[in-house]
């Protein structure tokens, strides 16, 4: 496929959409599907057909963001969003087209939830049908790939990513451009690209939504990376728990191959790039890059010491570039609009936007994309709509089991890699769980430690034994049977595990304990000395039972 052909598709799409007077966009992401969004789509189609309406298109689109109020239907060009739509509402919605919207279903788009967001990664989410290549192309899809292949040299592509200041969206925040440069410079006839879609953090669903809503964007990002570093083969490693994302990704790969946007001689150039999907099988540690490589090779997902880094010796010993789904999704707009444009968004050291999965005790749960540097308060209270049922905010957890719990005093802190690290948490892949006074922080720390204990791959002793011991200690604190000596031991163990574990899983596993100890120490003490759980979550044995 050459740029002219892409333009032809765009023109055909524009012409076709000129005939469409009205569009009913039904969210077909996993969240809305699970509340019967698919039935809504069918009912709307049937209604439009039975009324023999001309120029009305009913189609499935990607995530519309506000998962809490699904199933969602967006009517264009009126730009009216309907929430909690059921199949029975189809007649009313179709009848109202061109007239007054159905009042009982309308969800205001003027709220901060929609107004405060900035879309780069999710620019097409909810706007295109993720199962059609033409839709993506009509929204300037594959334009960056075609332009780069025909007009720019690989080092220029790397330079553009460097200039953008993009940092890895998987959690650690390593500068993406530097990683690309390392792989590009690495010697070897064969190189690989891996897209890390093993979104193992409980409470995170950004990658799932991106893959479900705009799969071609990730493929385009990977192909651009392949061109930049000199790789001709890529793997997308996706969780088997995301069947819809896997299906849409496979469909997108087939379409791109057929259109000549993947495979041999892309855009009539010498560049060849193939993509394969690899299914994960439920192992959190596979988010670690060397463990992920082992898993792609068909082995147990156990990490190995670095160096050598995957950029030098990765998949089957070849130089390998591993980036997260969201990182790759940022690449096409960076190539299209320029690194400078991207660097103009966000803060000094954290550029661009970040997608967060907002969940927990917050009114507007869902998928959001915000510029870096926005405050936690804006995210939780403006976009998120605050805490439901008039309860009081207690903490927000970022970064999953590797992150920490941030208390109220830091709500006005800007959200960027360095600020989050300063308070003991991490950006992580973007899960953001809000907790109110009904959550016990010791119980939360125990929950994450239980997670790390079961997810520890067992290769290194500090992580395998340490997480189990820390979990035992936290359990006895929750049960009210622990002493102050136990607390001291817990703190010592946190240090040991943090500094001696082999990989990121072990090294960061004490973070939830360390942050809760730092900001909610009184809750630990209440369990240990007063034998009570301030939140009323833990089942504490009475003193008599303890001494019996």
């Amino acid at each position, binding site marked *: 496929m050459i740029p002219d052909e892409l333009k032809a598709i765009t023109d055909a799409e524009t012409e076709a959409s000129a005939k469409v007077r009205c569009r009913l966009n039904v969210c077909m992401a*996993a*969240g809305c599907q*699970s*509340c019967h969004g698919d039935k809504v789509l069918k009912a709307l189609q049937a209604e439009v057909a039975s009324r023999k309406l001309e120029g009305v298109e009913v189609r499935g689109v990607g995530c519309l963001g506000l*998962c*809490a109020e*699904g199933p969602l239907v967006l009517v264009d060009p009126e730009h009216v969003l309907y929430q909690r739509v059921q199949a029975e509402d189809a007649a009313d919605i179709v009848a109202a087209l061109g007239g007054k919207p159905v009042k009982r279903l309308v969800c205001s788009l003027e709220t901060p939830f929609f107004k405060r967001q900035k879309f780069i990664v999710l620019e097409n989410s909810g706007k295109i049908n993720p199962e059609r290549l033409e839709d993506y192309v009509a929204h300037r899809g594959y334009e960056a790939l075609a332009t780069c292949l025909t007009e720019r040299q690989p080092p220029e592509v790397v330079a553009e990513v460097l200039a953008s200041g993009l940092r890895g969206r998987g959690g650690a925040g390593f500068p993406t451009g530097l990683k690309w440069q390392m792989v590009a410079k690495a010697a070897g006839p064969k190189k690989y690209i891996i897209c890390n879609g093993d*979104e*193992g*953090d*409980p*409470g*995170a*669903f950004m990658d*799932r939504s991106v893959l479900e809503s705009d799969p071609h964007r990730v493929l385009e990002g990977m192909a651009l990376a392949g061109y930049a570093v000199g790789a001709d083969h890529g793997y997308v490693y996706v*969780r*088997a*728990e*995301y069947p819809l994302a896997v299906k849409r990704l496979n469909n997108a790969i087939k379409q791109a191959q057929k259109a000549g946007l993947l495979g041999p001689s892309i855009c009539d150039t010498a560049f060849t790039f193939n993509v394969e999907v*690899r*299914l*994960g*099988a*439920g*192992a*959190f540690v596979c988010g670690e890059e060397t463990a992920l490589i082992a*898993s*792609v*090779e*068909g*082995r*147990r*997902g156990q990490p190995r010491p670095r160096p050598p880094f995957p950029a030098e010796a990765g998949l089957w010993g070849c130089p390998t570039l591993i980036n997260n789904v969201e990182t790759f999704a940022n690449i096409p707009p960076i190539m299209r609009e320029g690194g400078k444009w991207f660097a103009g968004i966000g803060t000094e050291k954290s550029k661009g936007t970040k997608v967060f*999965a*907002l*969940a*927990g*005790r917050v009114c507007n*749960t*869902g*998928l959001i994309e915000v510029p870096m540097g926005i405050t936690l308060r804006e995210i939780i209270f403006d976009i998120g709509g605050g805490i439901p049922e008039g309860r009081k905010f207690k903490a927000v*957890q970022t970064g*999953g089991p590797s992150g920490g719990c941030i208390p109220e005093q830091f709500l006005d802190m800007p959200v960027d890699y360095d600020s989050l690290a300063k308070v003991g948490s991490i950006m992580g892949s973007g*899960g953001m*769980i809000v*907790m109110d006074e009904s*959550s016990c922080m010791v119980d*939360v720390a125990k*929950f*994450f430690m239980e*997670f790390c204990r*079961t*997810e520890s*791959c067992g290769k290194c002793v500090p992580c395998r034994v340490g997480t189990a011991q820390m979990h035992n200690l936290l359990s006895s604190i929750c049960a009210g049977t622990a002493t102050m000596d136990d607390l001291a031991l817990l703190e010592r163990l946190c240090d040991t595990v943090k500094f001696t574990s082999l990989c990121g899983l072990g090294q960061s596993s004490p973070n939830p304990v360390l942050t809760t100890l730092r900001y909610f120490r009184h809750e630990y003490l209440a369990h240990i000395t007063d034998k009570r759980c301030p939140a009323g979550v833990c089942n504490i044995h009475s003193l008599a039972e303890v001494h019996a």
Partner: protein
Amino acid sequence: MAADSSKIAAPSADKRWRLVDNVMRRHGYRADGLIESLHAVQESFGYLDDVSLRFVAASLRLPPSKVYGVATFYHFFTLKPQGEHTCVVCLGTACYIKGAQKILDRIEQDYGIKPGETTPDNKLSVLTARCIGSCGLAPAVVIDGTMSGKLTADETAEHICRCVGA
């Protein structure tokens, strides 16, 4: 290649083995197709047993220890057959905060089974998931492959009752 001429015979005439073999062939009977092959077995048969693990090991020319090692390393694979109906309770952070444990407690109270167990009449298995990525709808459960969100323990119990009772 030699791999094809010395192809390992399927354990039985069951047509599902052909599906498994298709996947292994697509990966050229190479070792790196192991996880995909195990996915194919589990999708076709519901779980991985000794017979299927040995078949995959022989076909990919891997020692059984390697195959067993991989099958037991990943949580998605199960070595036990499931009941007629399955209920997966998500235990991701968002679901945990919103009361997933109460759902598990309720199931244990109603059916006497803990996560990973199956009722004696083989009707229901209850499992937990690390996170199914439906955090916006927490707490979430997947009953017989269909996800439902924002459930209370009572509603979940009703759901299960409808599936199992039918």
